């Protein structure tokens, strides 16, 4: 049902699956990218180590169509890795940044990719055939702080960015050098490169840093999670109507649409949470961690000391009730079923990677319904 793998004792900063989901590229909070393969016994073995970055790797994305891996790091660089003779060879991409790169994503057709950075710039990089070189263009205005996450719209032209200036924005990233003029979208008609199509606040009031943005499968809706413990969604088909939910939980740092109406978010609560978006409203459906959902037990400090005094118990348990022992930092879609995404993987700072099977979880956890 849920497939738990303790990859390492080090935190997994980011991860990405290949096309047939047999290999996963991840970074263990250091300068290298490691490609892991599962052997017959279910154990994960490190197949390749991709060394190239001179500072921490902050983002990895594996292109399922072109089988190229793009990575970005705190050394202000991005590399595109290609498999040649069973070795991964890097190609440096000049991002022209003076601060760290924070996140990277291939576009849906994988001819270009977007890199967000702490330099308040999004670099859109595309391949130029004549010079055999990756070029980049910058989106600067009106970003006022670090870009924390980027996500592409299925039409390959529109890009969403979550930044730490408390806003989630939608831009046009139409590169006229490599693609045909795009059709008008529900997000906007003027699709000039760098054009701001929409801007949303992180939550009620100011909100907090927008950690993650995600487009729904058909691209009409955008979801984002903020550090103010809120999740929000905007529907471009309904005139950019925004639904914000201020949660009672610790902030989430990553989110993903699994169907057109359901979002899975995860973060410092150490478990993935399912939200439902319908009728202009967002609501929490359930947590995906069956261990925690089954019993509601709140332990206060006072009762803990009372127990220690009464029972003479000296040891304090340091493990957490959820499967992930520490914060989750990335959710990725693993496989799609008839309704939508049916398997997701989460990686956390506890070094674990867990694959959640949404279909079987829907049957086993009461109240969990994916709309």
């Amino acid at each position, binding site marked *: 049902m849920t497939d738990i793998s303790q990859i390492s004792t080090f935190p997994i900063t980011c991860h990405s699956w290949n096309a047939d989901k047999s290999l996963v590229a991840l970074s263990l909070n250091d300068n290298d990218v490691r490609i892991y393969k599962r052997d017959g016994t279910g154990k994960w073995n490190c197949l390749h180590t991709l060394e190239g970055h001179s500072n921490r790797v902050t983002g990895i994305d594996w292109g399922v169509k072109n089988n190229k891996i793009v990575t970005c790091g705190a050394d202000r660089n991005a590399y595109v890795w290609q498999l040649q003779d069973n070795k991964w060879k890097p190609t440096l991409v000049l991002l022209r940044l003076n601060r760290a790169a924070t996140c990277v994503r291939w576009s849906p057709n994988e001819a270009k990719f977007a890199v967000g950075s702490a330099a308040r710039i999004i670099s859109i990089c595309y391949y130029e055939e004549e010079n055999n070189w990756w070029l980049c263009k910058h989106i600067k205005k009106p970003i006022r702080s670090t870009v924390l996450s980027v996500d592409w719209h299925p039409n390959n032209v529109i890009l969403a960015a979550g930044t730490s200036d408390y806003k989630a924005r939608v831009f046009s990233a139409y590169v006229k050098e490599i693609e045909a003029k795009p059709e008008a979208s529900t997000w906007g008609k003027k699709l000039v490169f760098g054009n701001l199509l929409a801007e949303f606040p992180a939550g009620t009031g100011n909100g907090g840093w927008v950690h993650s943005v995600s487009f729904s499968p058909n691209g009409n809706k955008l979801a984002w999670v903020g550090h103010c413990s*809120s999740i929000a969604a905007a529907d471009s088909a309904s005139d950019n109507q925004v639904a914000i939910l201020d949660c009672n939980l610790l902030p989430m740092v990553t989110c993903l649409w699994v169907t057109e109406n359901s979002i899975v978010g995860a973060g410092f609560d150490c478990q993935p949470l399912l939200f439902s978006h319908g009728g202009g409203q967002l609501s929490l459906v359930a947590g995906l961690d069956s261990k925690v959902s089954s019993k509601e037990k709140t332990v206060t400090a006072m009762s803990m000391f009372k127990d220690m005094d009464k029972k003479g118990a000296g040891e304090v348990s340091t493990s957490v009730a959820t499967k992930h022992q520490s914060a989750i930092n990335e959710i990725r879609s693993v496989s799609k079923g008839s309704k939508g995404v049916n398997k997701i993987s989460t990686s956390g700072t506890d070094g674990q990677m867990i694959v959640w099977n949404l279909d079987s979880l829907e049957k086993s956890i009461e109240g969990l319904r994916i709309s």
Partner: protein
Amino acid sequence: MSKTASTREFRKVDVDQFNEDNFQDETAAEESQGPNETEVNNSLQSKNNTQALKTVLQNPVASCRNPELKTRVFKLVMKVLSLFKSSEVETAVASLSAVEVDLLMKYVYRGFAEPTSDNICPILLLWHEKLFAVGGYGSIVRVLTNRQTV
């Protein structure tokens, strides 16, 4: 030596404020008048504590730039909170909306930071416990992340 060499006033200037790249808070300052104080005092005199609490949380001053107004409202909120009996706190919290719970949590934390009287802390701790039961960790996180302070 030039005339200005002897003065050291320039060392006290905060040059960062003149940096054009600085993040400016875009939200325009709303001119909020704050809660109606006479109405609050009337409710308190007539022992209608819950009504006083709801009134004092209206017209929130969080987005104002007027520190005296904010301090006045803060002191009034502390007064209302301290007049509740321990047994009434839970029912009062139950009558608040989610937005009011978040706002009251902000005042509780300000109350911890600037105690208005010697025995305000145990009262605030009780309020904190009851508000936390309803608002959860999210209400505390929003106190920390929201740039508009009470």
